[in-house]
């Protein structure tokens, strides 16, 4: 291997990096994934609409369109193989005015051209028959039965765990500060740690992908963080709509969506504002108000009193408005500008890039690739018999720690002990939903901290919400 540590180094443990890692791990390659945070799924992948788009949005022939349609097609089987939560709930794009009908028709035609199956334009009455809470103003909608909702944490973590099971090394708290071309590959300089060397580099660095790209390529790109604020509502509001409800860009400008989440909450948002700060994951009063106002255009009587949290995510928007996927410099592969529909496209991007790199490397497929992965049992969702049997075997599945989401101590222990186990409270939360519920971790925080400390040996004072610097307590009283 010409003295280099790895065949492939992937920068970024978001859904794209994890998908590339998983697909590359099919080949006989020595791979590492470096991630700045303490866990995978810590950037854009953790704060988005959690939607698997059908694929009618992007321009026909674009990389976005291809990856979206292919990623959507793959998602069902992948969710079964890797045991993460996904449902094809279908999506609606609402049209509020007769004047906008041509635009709706154009969207339909673009979808058909992109290869989206089963698209249909339906009338306002049909929409309301399907979704009784849709506003009376709606005159028609584009219905896409293949649209879906997914747990973005579940998808990313499943891909990463499976990659890890197949030999990919994950290096957390590893921030790449520079990339230089060396003989036969690249050297990644890492803050406060030894550099990493590899023949090939995959740049899946989200909002920072332009920084790394521009270190090796003369053809500069620019990624603008496009901030989106969301509100998440209590599960009591989760059945307010069943389908993902979009708004056709039209007389109200670019709209927001109203959608159930795969775990039964209701999600509304996002806004879109271009900012400069790549770490600017703050919400603003103005944008939160915009989310509320715009969502009310689509859906009646949203119980805004039941908002349990709001959050903001940054889409990695590239100026060209297109995914940049491919070899940017000799042996340096971009997966840049992966904004929406990035989550939907990730599986397809993974397959595409892995194939490209494996061919270039001349790598053979492994014979012992593990294609499936089993998730953490969700005890509360099991049948009575299954649950009883499990508690008998492992009594800690019988101790409920998070009462809002019915998460047992056993599940929290699993989230820590398993492959790429959680090392922070947010890590546990994303794996088993502890603290995701209506009390927002008010009751279960102390107990969860104790379990994390006990299982990992991390002293209580060093237990973090997420990255170092986010310690929960300041010392003994």
């Amino acid at each position, binding site marked *: 291997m010409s003295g280099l540590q790895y065949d492939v180094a992937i920068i970024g443990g978001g859904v794209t990096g994890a998908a590339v890692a998983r697909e590359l791990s099919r080949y006989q390659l020595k791979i590492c994934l470096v991630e700045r945070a303490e866990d995978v799924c810590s950037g854009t992948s953790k704060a988005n609409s959690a939607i698997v788009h059908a694929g009618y949005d992007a321009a026909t022939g674009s990389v976005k369109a291809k990856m979206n349609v292919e990623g959507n097609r793959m998602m069902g089987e992948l969710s079964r193989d890797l045991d993460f939560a996904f449902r094809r709930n279908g999506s609606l794009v609402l049209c509020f005015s007769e004047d906008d009908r041509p635009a709706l028709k154009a969207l339909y035609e673009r979808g058909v051209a992109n290869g989206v199956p089963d698209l249909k334009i339906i009338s306002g009455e049909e929409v309301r028959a399907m979704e009784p809470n849709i506003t009376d103003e709606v005159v028609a909608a584009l219905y896409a039965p293949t649209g879906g909702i997914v747990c973005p944490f579940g998808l990313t973590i499943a891909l990463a765990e499976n990659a890890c099971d197949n030999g990919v090394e994950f290096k957390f708290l590893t921030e790449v500060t520079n990339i230089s071309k060396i003989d036969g590959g690249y050297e990644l300089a890492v803050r406060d740690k030894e550099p990493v060397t590899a023949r090939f580099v995959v740049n899946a660095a989200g909002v920072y992908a332009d920084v790394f790209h521009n270190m090796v390529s003369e053809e500069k790109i620019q990624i603008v963080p496009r901030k989106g604020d969301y509100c998440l509502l209590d599960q009591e509001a989760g059945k307010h709509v069943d389908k993902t409800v979009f708004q056709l860009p039209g007389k109200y400008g670019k709209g927001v969506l109203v959608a159930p989440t795969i775990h039964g909450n209701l999600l509304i948002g996002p806004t879109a504002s271009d900012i400069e700060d790549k770490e600017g994951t*703050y919400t603003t009063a103005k944008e939160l108000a915009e989310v509320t106002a715009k969502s009310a255009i689509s859906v009646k009587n949203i119980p805004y009193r039941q908002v349990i949290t709001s959050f903001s995510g940054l889409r990695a928007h590239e100026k060209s408005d297109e995914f940049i996927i491919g070899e940017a410099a000799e042996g340096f592969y971009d997966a840049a500008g992966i904004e929406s529909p990035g989550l939907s496209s990730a599986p397809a991007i993974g397959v595409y890039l892995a194939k490209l790199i494996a061919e270039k490397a001349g790598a053979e497929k492994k014979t012992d690739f593990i294609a499936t992965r089993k998730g953490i049992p969700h005890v509360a969702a099991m049948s009575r018999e299954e649950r009883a049997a499990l508690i008998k075997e492992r009594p800690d599945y019988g101790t409920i720690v998070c009462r809002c989401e019915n998460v047992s101590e056993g599940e929290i222990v699993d989230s820590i002990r398993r492959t790429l186990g959680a090392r922070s409270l947010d890590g546990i939360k994303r794996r088993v939903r502890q603290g995701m519920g209506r009390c927002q971790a008010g009751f279960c925080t102390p107990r969860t901290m104790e379990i994390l400390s006990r299982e990992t040996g991390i002293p209580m004072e060093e237990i973090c919400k997420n990255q170092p610097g986010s310690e929960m307590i300041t010392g003994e009283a």
Partner: protein
Amino acid sequence: MTHHDIVIIGGGPAGLSAAVAARKAGIQDILILERDGVLGGILNQCIHNGFGLHTFKEELTGPEYASRYIAMVEEEKIPYKLNTIVADINKEREVTYINREEGLVTIKAGAVILAMGCRERPRGALNTPGYRPAGIYSAGTAQRLMNIEGYCVGKEVVILGSGDIGLIMARRMTLEGAKVKVVAELMPYSGGLKRNIVQCLDDYGIPLKLSHTIINIEGRERLTGITLAEVDEHRNPIPGTEEHYSCDTLLLSVGLIPENELSKGAGVSMNRITSGPNVDDCLETEVEGIYACGNVLHVHDLVDFVSQEAALAGENAAAYVKNGKRGEKCHKVPLLAENGVRYTVPQVLNVDTMQDTVTVRFRVADVYKDRYIAVYYDDKLISRKKKKVLAPGEMEQVVLKKSSFADYPEIGRIKICTEVE
């Protein structure tokens, strides 16, 4: 399926008092289900004093108050299960619980007493803009970490909301060496008891800013600061009033919400104002044989009143188990809360079967000075009592006498309201 005469959901102050009262009323077969590892509920972390003046005529700390009731439960040998969480209750009063020893078990109850308490409103419910760093705690979570686990949650503290837990934590953190910079309250009045403002804030020179809220939260990993602003009468921030506070900790004491997920599952109808079940004067919900008391019914200021209320629920559940359902033709009279009275508990009075006196508890909607609390039977004024000060943070009560209904056999409603003159 195992049967128990009375199953009590929750072993906090309400559940314990209900159990003791039910036993004294002659019910042998009682079971308390408690999700924590000890009895006593939230009192265990309320280590400050001020409990029990009504019940025990002395001032106790939370753990001491709890221990008195735990001792009664032990003395009466009332069975309880710890570390046991109830997963489901249905209309047929089948209660499903989970614990590590038994797994998933369903039992049938003659009567169920809901005594699950309440939870704190989290930051998310406020929709406060900004980052989501570590260092933001609901006051009760911080209280538990400090008083039970023994950890300090921070050094420089801002508290949003002037609920009692927030005020108590302002003093507690100050005593432990933290600097509490300000307590901000959205409303023009405090949500906590006056005595707590005196002994928790004034004693330590901690400013209380009424009509203020937090409009921004800073810090990516750990909290580094917040921006406070004054609000107008519509509770909207007033531009130009922004003040920045650096802090590593933000405690929220912005309201308590009765935890009624199980009640809703059992089909119990809920009151929009209290967020607790609608109950009659027996504290029976609209589902037969299911009773509610304590903070799951409506949020109380004083544990003494929780104990009183729960004892009533225990006695009535016992009567139900022994005598079955009360007469179908009962004369049920709704209680209406009007003109500055936000709600009443109970919401319905059974005039025929009521005890000699029924205590009606309620809260007012705003701070009022020199107002009367008036009770009307239909349109007839029955009683009027002047109060120097009424405040939403302090629960009020009126007592209705059975004898007073003798002259009103056809009464259609009872109205409780405030009046200026």
